């Protein structure tokens, strides 16, 4: 998505990215980024919470209108939960036993094969 935003912007179309992966989006370097500190998959606000979604969109629109320069990140003030322990879960290596590693490796190889055949079929 970062690459798309950069290309549109370079060709005269202003962009704003709404996202959750702060390090990845900022590593790419994008014009405007509204960051929600939520689990990946909730770039547009909390599920079944129209107010959270509307506030998230409004921040993105304000950013689109008013960013003073490129690489402007705004952090949404909304919290996923008061307690931040959910942040430990994503690809948590401490839960990986050698058996699990072998299993995940096999799954990954299978997934790659599926993606490859699908890609080559299109």
């Amino acid at each position, binding site marked *: 998505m970062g690459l798309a935003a950069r290309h*549109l912007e370079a060709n005269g179309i202003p962009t704003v*990215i709404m996202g959750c992966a702060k*390090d990845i989006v900022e590593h790419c370097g994008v014009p405007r980024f509204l960051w929600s500190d939520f689990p990946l998959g909730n770039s547009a606000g909390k599920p079944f919470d129209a107010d959270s979604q509307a506030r998230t969109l409004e921040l993105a629109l304000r950013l689109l209108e008013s960013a003073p320069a490129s690489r402007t990140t705004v952090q949404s003030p909304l919290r*996923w939960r008061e307690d931040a322990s959910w942040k430990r879960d994503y690809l948590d290596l401490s839960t990986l036993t050698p058996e699990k590693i072998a299993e995940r490796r096999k799954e990954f190889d299978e997934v790659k094969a*599926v993606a490859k055949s699908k890609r080559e079929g299109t």
Partner: protein
Amino acid sequence: MSAVFAEDHDVPIPYMQRTREYYLALGFRPYRWAHFVEAPFTPLRVPLERARVTLITTAAPFQPEAGDQGPRAPYNAGAKFYQVYSAPVDDKPDLRISHVGYDRVNTVPEDINAYFPLTRLQEAVAAGRIGSLTPRFHGAPTNRSHRVTMETDVPELLRRCREDGADAAVLVPS
């Protein structure tokens, strides 16, 4: 203002580091993320109240033949797509994210509005906050190959945005 500091782990999740360490532990070569120091900038030239806005997503249209794409589906590479697609905004699109690596521990993607803000954008148009939406939204493939993304997908997205007369784009990765 509270004098109690937040917990030390309450920081942006280092996704690149975690992914790198995870794939190394599994014995795979680390992925290299796109990285630039400078970024282009184009100010919004039309007031938003008169602007035509387009929506770009990485979510995939539901494909009945492509296996489990439900909210509790494991990662489903068979549901991926490899070409830019476009669909009318007025048709209540059914888009899923089983083909990407979202946080499956903490998220059950049962509400499309949490990753595809079309309804909220339509409300913003109705409220006069945005001039209009383009008649189509656009889907961007989540291709691992930066070369394909840069040479094929991204120019195609630009072409479609221009065709639709978009004044601005809201991009929402899932």
